[in-house]
């Protein structure tokens, strides 16, 4: 018998996310993985600044709220404090990870810091009301690119997995999405691997999740899911960008 239940490591409270936002799905996947690996009691999660700032309320494991962009540095501290006993993950958006926190991201990867990063890329700043993100697509209309992202003035989007894959350091980099049942299943596989790598002391593992923001994209939830297929995936191809222990995947 299959019983649909809430993961034990996910708090039994309602989340503040907008209808159609995929944060809830990714939170659930992280919690399912923590349950399945039996690591809730030793896991410490780091929440970012952005829409998922209050993720610290949604997981039942110990949680830390970091300053904007600094989660990988905070995670480094928590991990180094007790490398054998602490399982540490950060949960960060694109503004947090790829703009203000780029230095912390790149150097944690370069050091192959043994942590897990869940990177939510929805191509926009959600919490502050829909401004241009480092990952906003060329031509994308946002509050701070009202005429569409002009690459001559604002430059091009940052492709995080591609960029980090040029480094010797990181163990595992994969880009997934959650806009269909099949995609969700695949995303869970990637997230589980990113945690398992840490347990196995393999090092820095980052899963980039192409996500929706129907509210700030100005779309229905359904159209937002379609927009991932039509606009985001062509610019940000899904797949494994680095998997050092399984060379055939590279």
């Amino acid at each position, binding site marked *: 018998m299959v019983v649909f239940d809430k993961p034990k490591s996910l708090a039994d409270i309602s989340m503040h996310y907008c209808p159609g936002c995929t944060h809830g799905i990714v939170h659930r996947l992280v919690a399912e993985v923590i349950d399945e690996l039996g690591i*809730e009691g030793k896991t*410490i999660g780091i929440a970012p600044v952005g829409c998922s700032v209050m993720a610290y309320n949604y997981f039942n494991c110990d949680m830390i709220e970091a300053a904007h962009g*600094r989660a990988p540095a905070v995670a480094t*501290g928590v991990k*180094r*404090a007790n490398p054998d006993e602490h399982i540490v993950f950060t949960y960060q958006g694109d503004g947090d990870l790829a703009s203000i926190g780029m230095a*912390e991201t790149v150097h944690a990867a370069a050091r192959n810091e043994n942590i897990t990063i869940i990177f939510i890329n929805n191509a926009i700043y959600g919490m502050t009301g829909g401004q241009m993100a480092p990952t906003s697509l060329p031509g994308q209309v946002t509050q701070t690119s009202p005429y569409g992202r002009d690459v001559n003035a604002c430059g091009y989007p940052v492709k995080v997995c591609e960029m980090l894959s040029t480094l010797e350091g990181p163990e595992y980099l994969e880009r997934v999405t959650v806009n269909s049942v099949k995609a969700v299943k695949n995303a869970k596989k990637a997230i589980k691997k990113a945690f398992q790598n840490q347990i196995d002391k393999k090092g820095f593992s980052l899963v980039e999740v192409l996500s929706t923001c129907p509210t700030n994209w100005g779309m229905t939830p359904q159209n937002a899911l379609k927009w991932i297929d039509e606009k985001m995936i062509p610019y940000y191809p899904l797949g494994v960008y680095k998997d050092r222990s399984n060379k055939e995947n590279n």
Partner: protein
Amino acid sequence: MANKVLMKGNEAIAEAAIKAGCKHYFGYPITPQTEIAAYMAKKMPKIGGTFLQAESEIAAINMVYGVSSAGYRVMTSSSSPGISLKSEGLSYLAGADLPAVVINVQRGGPGLGDIQPSQSDYFQATRGGGHGDFHMIVLAPGSVQEMASLTVKGFELADKYRMTAMILADGTMGQMMEPVELDFDVAPAPEKPWATNGTKMQRKHNITNSLSLVPEELEKFNFARYERYKLIEETEALCEEYLMDDAEIAVTAYGIASRVTKNAVDEARKMGIKVGLIRPITVWPFPKAPYEKAAEKVNHIITVELSMGQMIEDVMLATKCKVPVTLCNRAGGMIPSVEQVLEEIKKYAKRGE
């Protein structure tokens, strides 16, 4: 008698931190404090600790935030421009009520300034050191011995009050060598039931956080924090008084300025001038009592500073301007000479006659 070793001030800080049970250090190179990082890089791997050269001062203070969240004693060090970068983290540490020890071996500013000793970060250190209502405990060593002993004290106070203790040193204190005794009776770290170190499935989850979106609640946290600060002001202020009993003029200085001043006071005494020294050892909390006392009996107070005059404001507040307070200073990395301070003392001694 205990064994003494000859050490640089910066090295004394590093060794004292290790003696205080700090096994995690994060830093970024900046003159004139890099010996601390170099010392930690050598020692930490040998004691199973962490030395990590962070990618920036910002990353270093956030690594400190992580270790402290997990309940361990932790330290970072820098010099003035680097402390400005850390100020975001200092505010978050305060907001999350986390203990940490931060060293500032001050150099001349503003901006990139120079690499010579300075005391021009006094305002930054004593007024909080970042955005929002908060304080750090700020200890101001006046010798290499105090570089060590106040570092140990810093760890104890940080844990006791769940806040940052800053060692406010200067380039001279960091670089000069003096004999130092390193046998300390260190208070063990208290239990930290708030630590985010894994629930072990035995308690509700802990959250380390400085976000509090309900203003009524945030206000409550701030008032509670200032109750704690009040207690610290009442019980933790430290000061040395030198030849103040019969003094008609008081000179006040901390750190390297106090060393120069003490010599000037001795010279003035030889000339028959009744002058004494008040040397704050904590600059936050500021030791008000000796100044209140002095204000009742001296004719004049001189503050000697390696800045354009910052501590002088605390002296005026502590004395409620009952006596004239004037500044004797050098800035931009320069140190007042004994002669300069002596001339200043003589000036006001004459007026007193």
